[in-house]
């Protein structure tokens, strides 16, 4: 290789050495600058920057979309939103050390007023493997992490300003604890309609798999029960997101990349606030009347329907509760108030989920079935001797009354039991050839009994229309249960679980008999229905046979008031009830004619409002009778069907009927007069 000119030079000249030294000096200087700057930043000002870092927390925060407002039919707000401060725990940011984590959570619980007493922690469906006792908050966090990892856990949903201030100033002492602005539901009228609205809550892992919550993101707040559940897709809105910078006081100091939340749509109900209030007041009055008669009534329900379209004008249940207080309750307080028997189960909507025998109010169905089956006509006379004999069994009218020869008109007017007993016996069919029963069962089902009404509430309560097949099924279930019970007696663990649970039938294993049909004819025996089902049945009597779909939601509107969707009522089916006017006439006689079971209750009620109503006194084994009243007033402008029941309230005319009058008075703007009836009919 030919050496090139540079190859001849000595590798390092003094000039080159100088230049390298200068380069080295420059490099040294640059490194020096960097080192000094780092020393200044990290060692001399480190404390200051550390403080900034801990206050300078930025996170992507979900901005909760406010749920839509729920208002009554006239636009008066029933469910609104209010801003509140929630204390959240991020499980992954809690101390890793078990003891320190426990100490921190105990400290937080004390600040929040939560229980700090360790207790057994169970997660309902599946027990946590580690069953060491832990405090309430620990337990909830552990369950939440198990069910929905990475989600924040709400330690307390609604804290006072004092707690807010305390935590905000001590953020360093509570690692993993954050404070969030949230929307909580507020109910300006407290306990009015409380059971209808239902509850909202954080979506659970199981919820996320349900098609009902399609598109919901983890951590969102969704409707869990009641109307909040039914109309959740409209009410929930779309959460926004924000990357915010928060200082040590928990205040946002800057925000970037905000996706604005979209508020949910508003729901307009068919409920009339005035009627709802009056209804709940009427229940209280009914309970009071019953108590005055020595009946230990403490619960009841009412339903007011527009018979033309199934719009629910009012629907209430007693006892009620103030949903505003729920976020403030601790878990133990909540359980004591709402999940114990002693609390009276105020969260149960007895109007849709209370299953009761309905007594004589059922007689309209019996009459319709008998006429449709051609067993009687309205004028067919029946000779009432005061008692009805079926085989060896003798049944009497209430108070052993005897009404002589009666037609349908008087049978309704006086609520003559023997008349309907006879129809029941007459309508009974051969259980082998007709396992689903005869005309009585058919018509009961046609009126909507034994099936969950097509109501816009998440209820699955269907009631019972007893039939031969039903009885056989129950006998079989009872036999299986008893067999299990016997088996379990060898195993102590199972014995406790099955104890007292075999109550499918009375255990006599008896077959269907005519007596069952006789009991059914007066709404007794194994028949069970809800007040809402009764109202729907009477609406069909009023409107000429249309079995309506009851609904509480009327329409959904967006922020600008535009209609998103209207809830169509419609009807399930239209019945052709022969001689329907005769049944209506009977109901009218009962409520207006001399001696009618509820005529004295309606005394003085303006005559332009003609009342068609039937009392009922449902008998229970081992507890006082239940007071029932179902009526309608076929006003051309504002027709209404009212069903009222008072548990342990005594005779229908004594408690439920006066309450119904109060509700009707409110609806028609009539002076409210409490008139307790005297009729002692069933």
């Amino acid at each position, binding site marked *: 290789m030919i050496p090139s000119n*540079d190859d001849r030079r000595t590798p390092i000249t003094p000039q080159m050495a100088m*230049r390298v030294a200068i*380069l080295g000096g420059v490099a040294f200087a640059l490194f020096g600058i960097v080192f000094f700057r*780092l020393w200044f*930043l*990290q060692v001399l000002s480190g404390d200051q920057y550390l403080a900034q870092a*801990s206050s300078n927390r930025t996170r992507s925060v979900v901005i909760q979309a406010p749920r839509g407002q729920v208002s009554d039919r006239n636009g008066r707000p029933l469910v609104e939103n209010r801003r509140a401060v929630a204390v959240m725990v991020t499980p992954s940011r809690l101390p890793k050390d078990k003891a320190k984590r426990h100490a921190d959570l105990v400290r937080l619980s004390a600040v929040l007023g939560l229980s700090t007493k360790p207790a057994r922690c169970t997660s309902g469906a599946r027990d946590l493997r580690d069953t060491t006792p832990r405090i309430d908050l620990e337990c909830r966090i552990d369950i939440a992490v198990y069910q929905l990892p990475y989600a924040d856990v709400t330690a307390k949903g609604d804290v006072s300003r004092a707690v807010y201030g305390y935590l905000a100033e001590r953020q360093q002492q509570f690692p993993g604890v954050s404070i969030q602005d949230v929307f909580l539901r507020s109910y300006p009228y407290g306990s009015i309609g409380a059971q209808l609205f239902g509850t909202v809550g954080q979506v659970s892992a199981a919820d996320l798999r349900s098609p009902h919550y399609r598109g919901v993101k983890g951590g969102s707040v969704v409707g869990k029960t009641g109307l909040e559940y039914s109309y959740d897709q409209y009410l929930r809105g779309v959460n926004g997101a924000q990357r915010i910078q928060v200082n040590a006081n928990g205040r946002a100091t800057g925000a970037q990349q905000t996706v604005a939340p979209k508020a949910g749509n508003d729901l307009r109900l068919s409920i009339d606030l005035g009627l709802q209030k009056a209804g709940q007041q009427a229940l209280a009055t009914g309970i009071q009347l019953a108590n005055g008669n020595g009946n230990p009534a403490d619960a009841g329900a009412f339903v007011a329907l527009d018979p033309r379209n199934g719009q629910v004008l009012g629907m209430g249940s007693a006892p009620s509760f103030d949903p505003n207080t729920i976020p403030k309750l601790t878990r133990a307080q909540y359980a004591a108030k709402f999940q114990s028997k002693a609390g009276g189960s105020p969260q149960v909507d007895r109007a849709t989920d209370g299953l009761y025998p309905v007594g004589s109010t059922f007689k309209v169905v019996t009459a319709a079935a008998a006429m449709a089956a051609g067993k009687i006509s309205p004028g067919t006379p029946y000779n009432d001797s005061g008692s009805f004999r079926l085989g060896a069994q003798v049944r009497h009218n209430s108070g052993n009354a005897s009404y002589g020869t009666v037609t349908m008109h008087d049978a309704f007017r006086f609520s003559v039991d023997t008349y309907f007993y006879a129809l029941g016996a007459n309508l009974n069919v051969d259980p082998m050839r007709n396992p689903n029963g005869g005309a009585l069962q058919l018509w009961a089902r046609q009126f909507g009994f034994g099936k969950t009404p097509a109501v816009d509430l998440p209820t699955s309560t269907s009631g019972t229309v007893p039939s031969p097949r039903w009885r056989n099924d129950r006998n079989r279930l009872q036999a299986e249960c008893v067999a299990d019970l016997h088996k379990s007696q060898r195993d102590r663990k199972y014995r406790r679980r099955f104890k007292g649970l075999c109550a499918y039938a009375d255990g006599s294993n008896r077959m269907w008999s005519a007596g069952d049909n006789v009991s059914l004819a007066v709404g007794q025996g194994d028949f069970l229905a809800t007040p809402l089902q009764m109202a729907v049945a009477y609406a069909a009597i009023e409107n000429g046979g249309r079995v309506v779909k009851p609904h509480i939601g009327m329409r959904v509107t967006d922020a600008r008031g535009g209609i998103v969707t209207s809830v169509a009522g419609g009807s399930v089916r239209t019945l052709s009830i022969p001689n329907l006017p005769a049944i209506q006439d009977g109901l009218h006689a009962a409520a207006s004619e001399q001696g009618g079971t509820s005529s004295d209750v309606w005394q003085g009620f303006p005559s332009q409002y003609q009342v068609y109503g039937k009392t009922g006194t449902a008998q229970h084994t081992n507890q006082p009778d239940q007071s029932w009243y179902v009526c309608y007033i076929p006003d051309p402008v504002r027709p209404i069907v009212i069903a009222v029941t008072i548990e342990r309230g005594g005779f229908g005319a004594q408690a439920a009927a006066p309450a119904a009058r109060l509700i009707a008075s409110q609806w028609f703007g009539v002076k409210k007069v409490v008139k307790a009836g005297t009729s002692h009919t069933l």
Partner: protein
Amino acid sequence: MSTTPIQRSVDEATRGPVRPRLLFDPWLLLAAIGLVACSAITLKGATRTLVPNSPYYFVERQIGFAVVGLVLMFLIARFDYSRLREFKYGLYGLLIGLNVLVLGFGSVSHGSKRWIPLPFFNLQPSEFGKVLLVLVLAAFVVDRSRYLGNRDTTARVMLLALAAAALVIIQPDLGTGLVYVAVAMAVLFVAGAPGRHLGGLIGLFAVAIVLVLVAAPAVGIHPLHQYQVDRLTGFINPSHDPSQSSYHVNQSLIAIGSGQKTGRGVQHATQTGLRFLPEQRTDFIFAAVGETYGFAGAAVVLSLYALLIWRTLRIITLAKNLFGALIAGGILAMLLWQVFVNVGMTIGIMPITGVPLPLMSYGGASVFTTFLALGLLQSIHVQGRIAQGSKGRSLVLS
């Protein structure tokens, strides 16, 4: 050449059973491996939650890049760099060609076109071009080494560099463009260009900066994008607008400062963990080091760079020829400039430019380029050692 078998046999014959000497520089290798290790450790903490279900995604890839880079380095070290001088026109053509190509076919990322998508990786010509430019300029200067005092030489060298830099700056990648200029200055300096030339150049740049940032906008011409202007000036007053251009600097300062002496640890490094720190696996990885491992960690990383720089300086003196010394000088400038600009950016003493921290920042292009440069340095070292040996021998023989 000194690698011929004849030469070797002479070595063995004169020295007898020689103690096997390392021809490559072990300290340079050690510094590189140490930096890759630091990068992996930092990435492990900073990116553990970035890719769902694979916490080591970036660590694995970075180590993969480094392994390929190391192989590349050893391959280059085996060849005599001196031969590359013959290809200077081809290399310069490649440098310009690739950078023109990227303007036409590059894929857009963060608003700039810097990559040419290839089946196995994205070629980033501006990164690769740094090493090409070092070679081209070194070769050019060696050719004109007799006319170094000429103003003409300085001007030509600068023109070559500025043409390439201009192509990079319009991509736009201002930071890398400025690396090109720094490399050119360093090559001229090591070659022994007159001080007044270099002083004049610095003066020209000062005037250019004033023109671009102050004078031109004043008359309504905006040669830079607004974000570039903001970044270049933002470091002067970082708390001026915390949510906008100086946001990055502020977050970086808080991250580094909060690391204190020994760091906050991976779990408690909120600036890094909460993604408060921008570009934490690439341009701002040093801030992640500072926050997570504190002054101690930052000092370790800087010490490794100091070791790298020291060895490079030493290689300048060991080079068997001017070409080698100039290449080493150019690479020195490239490394020193990148380290200082990048670290300076994270500690708020330099403007924000998208310059990666060699071997620390995640990314194949940067890692490969750096190992390419280290390969050249090793080659210079190896050749220097061999030449030294032969020279020593020839002295004895004569």
